[in-house]
């Protein structure tokens, strides 16, 4: 199920502004890769180029290559809609559909992808909610609105919604930044379970979090305000946090800037 992502020489633009320049990296399957870096360094933008969500913003575009195993995601005949069905995403702020019930939220992606019988849907929804560690809390109120849950529960609901369509990759854009420590812990536990099945990429501002959950860490930085963000280095998380190759990385993780 999980696949490897290879990015080569990727630039991303907002209109004429170049937000990231020349990123090349390989993201391993069945592992957690964390992106860290100061605000505005383009790590979220880069994450969004991986499932073609970047171009949703008017004027935004991408140059370069992103390959999922053998397929170029920016190839001429590639439909961004099908890319997004393969590469799921969880956002910074929990965003369940407010008019849908908990059940319908989880089933939303499935209903887009095709026809399922009621019993199939029931099975996948239960499995996904269990996968997102939410089943026990919501199993008695699946018909209630998803927006009525707490913030941490909503975020796990969004994770359940994302994994319900069985993506190859799961992208997480600061998934815990709007959550309290207990909910954060719950999500982190979930991430370490999910990596058995998925390729996971997580953007985080919290370096302890990166150190706790990830196998590989990529550090992004920008030369100056207004300059494009760049990948400084990427390595095993333990190495980045103990013995980084670049001075800028060391400065950042020791809190000397950013």
């Amino acid at each position, binding site marked *: 199920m999980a696949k490897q992502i290879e990015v080569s020489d990727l630039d991303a633009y907002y209109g004429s502004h170049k937000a990231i320049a020349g990123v090349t990296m390989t993201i391993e399957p069945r592992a957690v890769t964390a992106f860290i870096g100061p605000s505005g360094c383009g790590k979220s933008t880069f994450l969004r180029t991986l*499932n073609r*969500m970047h171009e*949703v913003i*008017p004027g935004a575009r991408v140059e370069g290559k992103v390959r999922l195993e053998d397929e170029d995601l920016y190839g001429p005949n590639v439909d961004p*809609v*099908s890319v*997004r*069905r*393969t590469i*799921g*995403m969880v*956002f910074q*702020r929990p*965003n*369940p*559909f*407010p*008019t*849908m019930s908990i059940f319908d939220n989880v089933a*939303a*992606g499935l209903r*887009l*992808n095709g026809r399922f019988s009621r019993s199939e849907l029931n099975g996948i929804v239960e499995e996904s909610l269990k996968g997102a560690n939410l089943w026990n809390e919501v199993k008695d109120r699946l018909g209630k*609105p*998803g*927006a*009525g849950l707490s913030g941490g529960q909503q975020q796990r609901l*969004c994770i359940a*919604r*994302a994994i319900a*369509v069985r993506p190859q990759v799961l992208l997480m854009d600061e998934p815990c930044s709007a959550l309290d420590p207990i909910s954060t812990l719950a999500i982190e536990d979930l991430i370490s379970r999910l990596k058995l099945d998925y390729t996971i990429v997580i953007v985080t501002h919290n370096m302890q979090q990166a150190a706790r959950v990830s196998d590989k860490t990529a550090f992004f930085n920008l030369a100056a305000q207004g300059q494009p963000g760049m990948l400084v280095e990427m390595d095993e998380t333990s190495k980045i946090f103990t013995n980084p190759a670049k001075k800028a990385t060391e400065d950042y993780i020791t809190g000397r800037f950013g």
Partner: protein
Amino acid sequence: MRRSAFRRSRGDGPFRFVSTGAGVILLAVMAAIGVFLIIKAIPALQANTAHFLTELTWSPNATEPAFGIGSLAFGTVLSSFLALIIATPVAVGVALFISHYAPRRLASLLGYVVDLLAAVPSVVYGLWGVTFLVPFMLGPSKFLNTYFGWIPIFGGDQVVGKSMLTASLVLAIMILPIIAAISREVFLQAPKIQEEAALALGATRWEMIRMAVLPFGRPGVISAAMLGLGRAMGETIAVALIFPATFNISFRILSANGNSIAANIANGFGEATEVGRGALIASGLVLFVITLLVNMAARLVIARRKEYARAAA
């Protein structure tokens, strides 16, 4: 004496006085209008020899006044609902195109045009309806009558341009911009994070709109449609020019049928007797009640989704 540190701020009193006063005056004026209309209507209703609610004809100026609201209320409701049925889907489509499909430049231009159209006085639509749409509609009406005459509303022996359908079309065109303008505003406010949630699940743009934009915009579209319906029901001059001013109840929308309360007031007020005026005022009261009922119904529809609306807030 030392002044308390917790004394009331001085701006609060006058502000409360002004805002409460404005609210009270509004209610008082409304009540005064209502009382005035009722007082004026009562003598006419007493002189009426027919049953006001069920009688179809309207001859309050005769020596034995006989008039009823039946056919007028029917025409008002039918023409307005036809207009609403025609206008709402188109308006929602226009609004969605402007808010979610059109390139930014085109969208702002179109938005501007729609706002402008919403501000055109209704008499202009009426004149356009009479001079252009009435003769133009003869062809399509005959077509509908010939090939779809088996559907009762398109049936009938004689087909005319000045029909219920033409009047409803003018009303539809008239209320379309206001529904589109309000719907567009609502759609533009659909939360970006939910739109992105839908897109990230692999929704096409239309699927995204169905998942994240339309449910969010629903109460707004209903409100917009109700505003349009209110405008259509109260519309006077535009339809007074087009309605054949008959006093019967018929669903044959291609034939020379149709009238409305507002059009009847416009046509009849000038040469009305004392009783005639009272009768027209009574019909105005009925229009008021119908509008009120429609608005209450709309509120019920919106309130039904309250559990979700509150959770989303």
